[in-house]
């Protein structure tokens, strides 16, 4: 199995490029906490409305610099009253579903979370700019999927 000299150059370049990509995302993810949405917490999908923090969905201030936003997703909307959060503070989103799989996606941000019944998805994000952001569901959830949206106000 002989490799042409140029093929060696090409494969070396390719493998180095892939290693650099992995290095960049790996370091940024694990040393600067830029990991995608996730979490290992579970919940009874039939008892969402009586389980904290989803018994009182909405914004809660945890301390001076941190807010938690609990959201219940369902076909075809979000139970998330009065979504107003400050810019420049860490916002921890916690989302779960009472029925099928949805997403909780905030336009023009890194918040793009799959919402799986029985699981709690967590994502931490800090808004830079105030404004009104569109929230939408980007996982097909039924006839009204395209009607499933909301808005969050950043002040």
């Amino acid at each position: 199995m002989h490799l042409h000299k140029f093929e060696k150059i090409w494969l070396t370049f390719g493998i180095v490029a892939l290693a650099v990509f992995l290095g960049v995302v790996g370091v940024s993810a694990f040393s600067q906490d830029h990991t995608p949405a996730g979490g290992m917490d579970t919940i009874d999908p039939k008892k969402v409305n009586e389980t904290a923090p989803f018994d009182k969905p909405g914004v809660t201030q945890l301390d001076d610099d941190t807010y938690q936003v609990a959201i219940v997703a369902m076909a075809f909307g979000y139970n998330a009253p009065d979504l107003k959060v400050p810019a420049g503070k860490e916002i921890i989103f916690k989302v779960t579903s009472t029925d099928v799989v949805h997403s909780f996606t905030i336009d023009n941000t890194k918040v793009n979370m799959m919402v799986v019944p029985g699981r709690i998805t967590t994502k931490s994000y800090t808004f830079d700019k105030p404004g009104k952001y569109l929230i939408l569901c980007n996982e097909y959830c039924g006839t009204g999927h395209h009607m499933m949206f909301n808005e969050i106000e950043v002040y």
Partner: protein
Amino acid sequence: MIAAQDRKIALWNIGVAYTAFLIGTLCGLLQVFIRNDALQLPAWLDYYQILTAHGVLLALIFTTFFIFGFFITGMSKSLGAFGPKVRLFSWIGFWVTLLGTVMATVMIVSGEASVLYTFYAPLKGSGWFYVGLALVIVGTWISSFALVGHYIVWRKTHKGELSPLFAFMTITTIILWIIACLGVVATVLFQYIPWAFGWTDTINVELSRSLFWYFGHPLVYFWLLPAYMAWYVIVPKLLGVKVFSDSLARLSFVLFILFSIPVGFHHQLTEPGISNFWKFLQVVLTFMVIIPSLMTAFSMFATFEISGRKKGGTGLFGWFKKLPWKDVRFTSIFIAMAFFIPGGAGGIINASFQLNEVVHNTLWIVGHFHITVGTPVAMTFMGMTFWLIPYLTGRKFTKSMQILGFVQIITWSIGMLLMSTAQHVLGLLGAPRRTAYSGYNGHESALEWFDGILTNHVTMAVGGSILFLSAMILIYIVVMTMFLSPKAVKPEEIVEFPMAESDKESTPKWLENWWIWIGIAVFLIVAAYAIPLSHMIHHAPPGSEGFKTW
């Protein structure tokens, strides 16, 4: 020409493939018009029903039947005519797959399974939809084992010999397919079917998603590898040269067995229930499967350059002009390859861990698979159709058919370029996939997405319409070459199966020791999946009941 009975099996497979293609592309056309508000559907039909049919019929059914038609023809050509048992099981496999297809399609059309082709629980379709899917898989297994049987017979009578490159690649693809399907068979048989028929009350959603994606990613390689087979084995023949390197071609194929399966989590990067460690481990493995594609890129350009230089091309790029551009069999595949450059690059982005947050479930993903399976794979299949059907029917591929062939691939390229570019840009802006409409009550952000010259509904609709026109031209070519074109009589009219020579004298024998590759593949799968899957089972939340939200 291969044995008449083998030709018949291949032709039936291709016939079903193009029937699915016809219905599937029609659904695609309807979709762009619905999104464009230009079409009102009757009450019994909705967007998501059509979307499900589009995905299932094109991504699963067209590809699978075409692939088996191609495999059957090539295996009969390279290893000799099928024996009676191989033939019998090829027919059984065909009919079982077709039965499953019809069951699933009937359920989709009757609105009992608007669950899209990923059928994520706890959306609950009719139990018969899942039975149909299971039969499709079982049918392909029967067809697969028939081909494996044919190969084993050949090996027994050719002791110590490496098999022809075509057969080697077919067996590689089949091994990959069988291992991959274990995941979807497990979830459909043990989770979906008992749950959909009401024998169990709930389903473990995260487990079902993970088993689906264990299958879902190698599924794309099941589409891609037959296209790579054409690139490695057919293209050199069209160019009048040998396979660039037999051993490297085989090596890249076995690397796909190893690395295309333990990577499914890269479709689940933004969801809960899988820890970051396991997600990232599978991201690393996903990057490994890029390497054989980099090898393939080099082999392809080298094949072009060697051929062009042989024909008198000089300088750095003189060879490029010497390629047989007037041969639609070649030009089609060349365009297919060109589309795979941004297609593959997009795939690297999708798998890049947190970068997935930018593109996940946006229209970017839709654009991505239209320039991977929708063009590199599909247009390679189209390019093969131009000679495969005439080869099997013994009909001519007339001058006017060749011109139509060019019109078809050029319209497909233009349509796809418009549509997929629009989809990629819209996705980066944030527009979601899989939506009938994405106006969100005229929300400002949503309006901005569709404001661009390229990123508006009209571009997508124009692209979609051109694609449909192209598809109809192809259907015309298929019908003509299958039933109506004049029979080839003179030797120069006879359409050949272009299969290049491949020097295997210096190819190491261990490449064809399948147990090595299956062993390593199983090891990698266990390493990547055993712990996270067992965690999903042992620490499962209460399961989900089914929902019919359509």
